[in-house]
């Protein structure tokens, strides 16, 4: 599995030199307005993940990869490992740029931005884990084209559903409500994680979120491996 992960990194590395600076410039610009910074980071991270799969598809490299002495499950697990690294890379870029923005604000005697906090970082982990958990099984089930469309539909439906159902159920996350955390990016997950950290402390919230992300990815990897085993090239 490690060799496949290294393969993903080697295959993608050549593009990181082009993609990461673009990513940094975009995030840097968005950090000036703050509010959308979180979601721009999530979008960039997701695009990076899709790009890794696109490289296999564009180069018609899947038969080559699957003709190597590896199992289908190993191919899938390696891609999940790549997704985790992509997530961490994005979190690192986001944290670095957000911190730089925070420091510059503090130096101008302004408060540290609320969107640049540990609970928002945890929310990023959870949101990205969810996106990867939806995207990768779709990719392994339906391939790059149909898989992307299927994943986009599922994610859009999930996003709409949480926005509608979430406030109705918990009353949280709506601006003006008692449970709305000003400065924390809008969304049920971001607001929910902020509430979790507020109620149980950052360490407990961190454990819960990381555990939840790990379970999501593990379950998703099982589904993706099953889908990949059925694939033919």
């Amino acid at each position: 599995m490690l060799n496949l992960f290294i393969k993903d990194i080697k295959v993608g590395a050549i593009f990181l030199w082009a993609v990461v600076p673009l990513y940094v410039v975009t995030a840097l610009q968005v950090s000036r307005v703050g509010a959308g910074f979180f979601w721009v980071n999530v979008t960039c991270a997701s695009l990076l993940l899709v790009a890794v799969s696109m490289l296999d598809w564009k180069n018609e490299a899947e038969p080559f990869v699957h003709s190597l002495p590896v199992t289908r499950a190993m191919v899938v697990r390696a891609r999940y490992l790549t997704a985790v690294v992509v997530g961490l890379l994005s979190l690192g870029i986001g944290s670095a740029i957000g911190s730089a923005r925070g420091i510059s604000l503090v130096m101008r005697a302004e408060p540290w931005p609320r969107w640049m906090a540990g609970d928002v970082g945890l929310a990023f982990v959870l949101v990205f884990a969810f996106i990867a958990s939806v995207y990768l099984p779709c990719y392994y089930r339906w391939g790059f084209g149909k898989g992307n469309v299927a994943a986009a539909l599922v994610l859009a439906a999930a996003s709409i559903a949480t926005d509608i159902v979430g406030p109705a159920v918990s009353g949280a996350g709506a601006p003006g409500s008692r449970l709305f955390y000003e400065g924390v990016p809008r969304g049920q997950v971001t607001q929910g994680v902020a509430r979790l950290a507020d109620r149980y402390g950052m360490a407990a919230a961190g454990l819960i979120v990381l555990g939840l992300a790990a379970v999501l990815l593990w379950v998703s990897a099982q589904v993706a491996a099953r889908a990949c085993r059925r694939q033919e090239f």
Partner: protein
Amino acid sequence: MDPILELRGVTKHYEGFSLRDVSFSLPRGYVCGLIGPNGAGKTTIVKLILGLAHVSSGQLRVCGDDPATAEIAVKNRIGFVHEVPSFYDYLTVEAIASIVRPFYTRWDQPQFDALAREFNLPMRTWFGSLSRGTRTKAALALAFAHHAELLVLDEPTSGLDPVFRRELLDRLAAYVSDGLASVLFSTHITSDLDRMADYITFIRDGRLVFSSTREEVFDRWVVVRGDPGVLDEATRPLFTGVEIGAHAFTGLTDDAPRARTHLAGRDIVIEPATLDDIMCYTGRTC
């Protein structure tokens, strides 16, 4: 010794095409030519061997193992060269070799370096910018470098110049000469097989027509040419395929002694069939 490759009643269903009940085996130390027209099922067989597609029914064994259950062990012993080798186009041959190397337990770097020099592989050129022939050479170097016990070549010579093609065929003959490795050579350029194949397996419309030693094939299969008047209800069943022209017919039979006996004294010419003849005339009815 167990055959290195064995198919027993292998069936694979696709929408619009089925490979049906294919059985043949390849002993160690031999080259098997897999022939058949386009769409016959050759690539399907290659995919099944490599585990890129799943067998619908039947039994497939590579080095005694089932590729479906012993995926890693089987693939570790197979070298594969596709008609149009596709790796990552923007990587150099050197980078691709560095990716492939750690996967194989018997990777031989000095061997790869020697082959790269011998094949004049431009190691620092993007794979995508290489000619088709050079891509094939790179794929061959990768396949040879891990000492594959079974080389599976899917139309490997179609992009190669005649000089390298001949070199390749000689190299394959040398590769199997130690009696440990075998080559499955899927092609429709049958002249490649005239030189080197020990076994010929002919697939047509998803069905096995025959799988025999080359000598058996050339002993059994003959082409008969003569006046169309020779063809009647008694003689026609002798042929597995017949083409009738304005002044003569050409018939293919897989029972040379019977044809000689039945057609003795008739105005005909009997010639050994080439693999091209067998592919072209099998199933022809007029």
